[in-house]
């Protein structure tokens, strides 16, 4: 299976902003590799600041990596010239988290959906109205909605409009950056169903960014768990979520509020994630890990195999059978 899109060893840091530009640069992404096949849905899971959005923008070529490369069917995005890169954008699209800031408040939504058609000359102006109506229908909205302004829609409807705008160019790969986390549960389900439907109908490959494991499990074939810009664990969704090998994945699963009928024992992590400007030595998770050992401060655990297609970065093998250390 050749990958539609492959990221190799991506790293990206941001200069620390501040009044006097002091402070260390933030290592938002460190040595992340990903491969996404045609039509595959990969979930990227992690807490806020773990670098999920940065990876999304790196693989779309909206942000340049400091190291590593992004290959679209074997072609390095960085090797393309400006005009060629703009043409490639047609095949790679983005759906945003915030349904309020992702649409231009001053333009009718029909025109915003038509932008992609106009930019890539996919439809002559005379046919655009029709194409916009078809796109709106595809996301469950009516043609007359094209004439409205964004503020006249609910959050869920705006998210659909954002998806319609992304679909306008007929992309093969969609990055959805927390597309449902700003929505009500009942509306979340609508948007998830829409994404799942589009995936099967259009054969879209999907990088689904989320901090919500149950949501990822319902939509994705594979999961990648991120902590402080590094991959902690990855593999088939069912496998990783049923037999998590990494203590962080276990903690995330335990913390995720799941089925209300089945409250579960939880592993409470201490404290907050450390600042990406000052990551711990050795294993980056060790300051919060309930399974931490003395060696964890010395070695950076490499990703190793935990089954077919399943890899994790922890030096311990016994987390599934051991109870976590009691937390404070």
């Amino acid at each position, binding site marked *: 299976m050749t990958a539609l899109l492959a990221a190799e060893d991506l790293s990206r840091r941001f200069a620390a902003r501040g009044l006097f530009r002091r402070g260390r640069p933030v290592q938002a992404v460190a040595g992340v590799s990903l491969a996404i096949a045609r039509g595959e849905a990969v979930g990227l899971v992690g807490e806020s600041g773990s670098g999920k959005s940065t990876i999304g923008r790196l693989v779309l070529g909206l942000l340049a990596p400091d190291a590593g490369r992004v290959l679209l069917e074997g072609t390095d995005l960085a090797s393309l010239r400006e005009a060629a890169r703009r043409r490639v954008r047609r095949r790679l699209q983005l759906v945003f988290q915030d349904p309020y*800031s*992702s649409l231009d408040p*001053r333009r009718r939504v029909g025109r915003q959906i038509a932008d992609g058609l106009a930019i890539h000359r996919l439809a002559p102006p005379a046919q655009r109205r029709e194409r916009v109506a078809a796109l709106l229908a595809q996301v469950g909205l009516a043609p007359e909605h094209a004439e409205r*302004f964004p503020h006249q829609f609910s959050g*869920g409807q705006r998210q659909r409009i954002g998806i319609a705008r992304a679909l306008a160019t007929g992309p093969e790969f969609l990055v959805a950056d927390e597309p449902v986390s700003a929505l009500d*549960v009942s509306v979340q*389900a609508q948007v998830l169903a829409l994404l799942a439907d589009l995936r099967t109908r259009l054969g879209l490959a999907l990088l689904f960014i989320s901090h919500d494991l149950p949501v990822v499990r*319902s939509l994705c074939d594979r999961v990648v768990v991120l902590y402080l810009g590094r991959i902690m664990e990855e593999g088939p969704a069912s496998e990783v979520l049923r037999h998590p090998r990494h203590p962080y994945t276990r903690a995330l699963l335990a913390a995720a509020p799941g*089925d209300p009928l089945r409250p579960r024992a939880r592993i409470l992590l201490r404290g907050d994630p450390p600042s990406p400007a000052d990551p711990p030595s050795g294993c980056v998770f060790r300051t919060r890990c309930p399974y931490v050992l003395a060696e964890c401060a010395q070695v950076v655990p490499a990703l190793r195999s935990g089954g077919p297609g399943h890899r994790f970065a922890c030096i311990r093998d016994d987390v599934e059978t051991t109870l976590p250390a009691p937390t404070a």
Partner: protein
Amino acid sequence: MRRLNWLPVAAVAAIAIVALATPLLPLPDPLAMDIAGRLAPPSRAHWLGQDQYGRDVLSRLLWGSRVSLGVAVLACGAAVALGTALGLAGGFLGRLAELLALRSMDIVLCFPPLLLALLVVTLLGPGAATLVPLLALLYLPGFVRVVYAGVLSVRSQDYAEAMRALGATRLRIMTRTILPNIGGPILVQFSLTMASAIVLESGLSFLGLGVVPPAPSWGLMIGAARSTMAQAPLLLLWPCLALSLTILAMNALCDALRDAVDPQRAPRPAGLRGTLAPHAPSLAPDGDALLALRGLTVEIDTPAGAIRPVRDVSLRLSPGETLALVGESGSGKSLTGLAAMGLLPPAARVVAGDIRVDGRDLRRLDETALRRLRGTAMAMVFQDPLSSLNPVHRIGAQIGEAVRAHHRLPARAVRERAVGLLRRVGIPDPERRARSFAHELSGGMRQRAMIAMAIANDPRLLIADEPTTALDTTVQAQILELISGLKRQGGMAILFITHSLPVVAEIADTLAVMYAGEIVEQGAAAALFARPLHPYTAALLASVPGEDGALPRSIPGTVPAPHDLPPGCRFAPRCAHRRDACEAAHPPLAPVGDDRLTRCIRWRDFAGTRPSAETAA
């Protein structure tokens, strides 16, 4: 575009037309002197009188408007055009352009404006031809900065990023996305600058640095009238009046334009306070309930008429109990919580019902008494801790402030109490954290600090409005743990407002589900989860992603808008169990067995069919 307010447009147009048409009007020559008519009062031939040389004041006023307005329009037009170009280049074309555009403006700003004016006029000599470039230069930095700041803020918005993701060229993003969105601020700046330019032109002319006499100009007229103020005070009045009216009209026009180009700006709701209805019937105290709402109905005036986003809500909360109020956004749950705190926004008012906290009738209390209750009897925690904490005060001082609102204590004791509270909510190293500012804390720590503030005076009732929604999963679990800990230790009653059923499962004893402003189901949490008796509750449960990884089931349609409620059952348009009878009458919230209420007439046929119950069993 929204409807434009035509009054200011008409006013400015009238001023402009008069100025433009002045040469065509049958006016006396503004320069013709008439020594005999020196300082003559208004007459039939000279409607506004004559000045110290006997020249016609009306004629000079109108000819002067041409000069004043002409200079201002030309100068501001040049400044806005050049400034927008420079600001766009600086914000959009990369580092070098940014450096050049901003630094050159800093140089202009280094000169005090009046000094610069004096310098230029001394070098080039007075006159309108000098004034225009001079004023344009003076106002240029203002425009560059407004445009530059606008570009930066719009460029960081997701919709600008979306254009980039679509592969749009810079030119397209600049013209289609950025310019329209910074039009408002530019218009505002333009109105300020026009007004300021008219004033500055008059000021410079008054000082003899602007328009050269005998040419008419408002500034010159004011200057001349000053010396004859005692004999002819009216001469001072006319040009001042012309100046003020023009500036007023300009400002009003620009406000109207800004409103008109912003499709989002809704007319403000008429503010109507009055949560207090002293004649409301008073009911007997509600047993030992800490919070008792009865038939609470809240009304808000909107441009589309009055709406009632909360209708007939009754809740009862005993000490040590946690009641979760669950509903989608817009269901009225936050307004209910705010009403219970006596904190409704100004446009909202309680039109019916009874709110009792600890036996006291909130609707009969005045603001002072309410303030005393807040903090001691009841306290509130909000969703977004960053916007609820004051950014310029240290965390410890803010918590101390909450302590001091109700206790007179020496400063040291207050400080110790604040540190103790931070420790109680589980903040590590509380002494050091007390000296931090809000932005130095993580989201979880901020929420802990907010909770510390809320419990500073040991309230018996805590109202928490989506306190974990903005937090990460692992941190959310910590905060839920903290809140249930508070409940276990202190017997605090908690009203927990949320849209997330799984979160509720962790901490709620009882549950009230709200839909479109009213409670549709109420009962013990466990019973409600096991066997929902309202289709909406069942649908909400099914919309949570299940353990088995099945796609969650969505509820078709959307929540009805409050001014467009369906007749009969409010949930009928989205309900899978609807019958004609459902739409015939509005179902009451009816008791079903012990402590269970549902607002569904078909609960018997429907009971027990929780969609995902089979898989979870």
